[in-house]
């Protein structure tokens, strides 16, 4: 089966197998990670706040996300009577769809990718930019002042930070000469002296700073979580949602977290390559895949831990400061980075 997905049947058949296996694997991977992340985030935040966090359901409260899931499943579904029914009801689907789609072009090991599309990076950016529409649909469809304000802020924020995000990746694309995520990881698979990895964070430190800030903002996490700043907007764009529809938004949000950190690992931290370890397992068939996946997931969780740490440490910025940080600091830095990269590589 695995050989089939990797090198097997050509054309349409290969696409079908890849698609079906890929979508099942992606849904499983993302759902498991989301369930684990909900617990992990609450636990780490609690530790930072010197609290215990969830500790009743199961050992260390690890069953808490499952209990939450069951609770959300058994909730009644309410559509506010002033809401615009069509928009209100379709918004969670759209949010879920556009959170899931980018995952199709991110591989977690050599060849283990749902679609090896050659415009991979642009595809990921293009599809994830569409989740803005879902947010505006939710905010407008609810016909609630808090929701609409939250949605407008979210949209302004993701527009402002998408530009630095897209522009900061150009340096890497210029080095690799490809938009395909597999090629980008392969380009980072070597090491100086056999120990120091040739990750792009060392080649493109400025791009990394810009990209990481922009990713945090795109995911709408503290310090850029103006979309659902609890103290002023109740819950932002999903104030009116409950039950399963709310769960869809939560799922989309944590999927963004998983996909975003996977993208950071792919672009700047060498994906599934680790200098010494990858060499040892390189010719060991299936074991090699397991090791690659393990390395990728481990790196991903380091990034996620840093994101949670940031959330536990920093405060929320104000909207004018956040927007001017995006346009006046990150965007010029991203442009300068392109010029520097172009000049250095040309020489």
């Amino acid at each position, binding site marked *: 089966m695995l050989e089939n997905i990797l090198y097997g049947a*050509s054309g*349409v058949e*290969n*696409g*079908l197998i*890849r*698609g079906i296996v*890929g*979508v099942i694997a992606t*849904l499983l991977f993302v759902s498991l990670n989301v369930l684990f992340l909900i617990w992990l985030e609450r636990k780490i935040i609690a530790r930072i706040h010197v609290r215990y966090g969830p500790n009743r359901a199961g050992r260390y409260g690890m069953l808490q996300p499952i209990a939450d899931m069951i609770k*959300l*499943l*058994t*909730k*009644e579904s*309410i559509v*506010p*009577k002033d809401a615009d029914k069509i928009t209100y009801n379709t918004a969670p*689907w759209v949010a*879920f*769809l556009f959170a*899931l*789609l980018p995952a*199709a072009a991110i591989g977690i090991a050599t060849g283990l990718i749902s*679609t090896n599309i050659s415009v991979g990076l*642009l595809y990921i950016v293009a599809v994830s930019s569409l989740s803005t529409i879902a947010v505006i649909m939710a905010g*407008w469809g609810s*016909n*609630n*002042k*808090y*929701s*609409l304000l939250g949605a*407008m802020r979210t*949209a*302004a924020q993701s*527009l*402002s930070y998408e*530009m630095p995000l*897209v522009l900061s990746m*150009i*340096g890497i*694309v*210029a080095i690799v000469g490809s938009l395909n995520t597999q090629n980008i990881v392969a380009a980072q698979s070597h090491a100086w002296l056999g120990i120091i990895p040739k990750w792009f964070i060392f080649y493109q430190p400025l791009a990394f700073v810009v990209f990481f800030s922009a990713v945090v903002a795109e995911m709408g996490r503290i310090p850029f979580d103006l979309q659902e700043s609890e103290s002023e907007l*109740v819950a932002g764009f999903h104030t*009116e949602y409950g*039950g*399963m*529809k709310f*769960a869809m938004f939560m799922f989309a949000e944590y999927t963004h977290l998983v996909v975003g950190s996977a993208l950071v690992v792919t672009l700047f931290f060498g994906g599934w390559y680790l200098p010494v370890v990858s060499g040892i397992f390189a010719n060991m068939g299936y074991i090699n895949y397991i090791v690659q996946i393990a390395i990728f997931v481990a790196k991903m969780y380091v990034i996620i831990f840093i994101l949670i740490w940031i959330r536990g440490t920093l405060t929320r910025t104000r909207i*004018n400061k956040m*927007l*001017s940080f995006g*346009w*006046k600091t990150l*965007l010029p830095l991203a*442009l300068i980075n392109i010029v520097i990269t*172009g000049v250095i*590589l*040309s020489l």
Partner: protein
Amino acid sequence: MGLAEDFIPIVIFIIVGLMFPMVMVFVSSLIGRQKKPEPDKYLTYECGVIPTGSAWMQHNVEYYMYALLFVVFDVETVFLYPWAVVFKKIGIFATIDVIIFICVLAFGLVYAWKKGVLEWMNGGASWR
């Protein structure tokens, strides 16, 4: 067939991405609370007060200006990506082209900056 191989998985992702929430909402409607909620539950939430007026009102022009700038820079990236991809194969001449291209658009950014488009207005009151 060329690209079919790459696009079929995306189509499958779209289908599953649309089906999955439907299934979940359906399951939820089966095992969820069946009792009809009291009419007040259908009110729009506004901190326990009966909402006055619709939320669909006029918003600041700032949002629109940011979106406008965004579209212009979006089109810019469309031209920068092909350059980045073929960067290794073409000479320094193209790099100079692109640097001029970026400078012209950076001028636009500076113009927007000077005109105060990047400031959040807050209805006349100034923020520090």
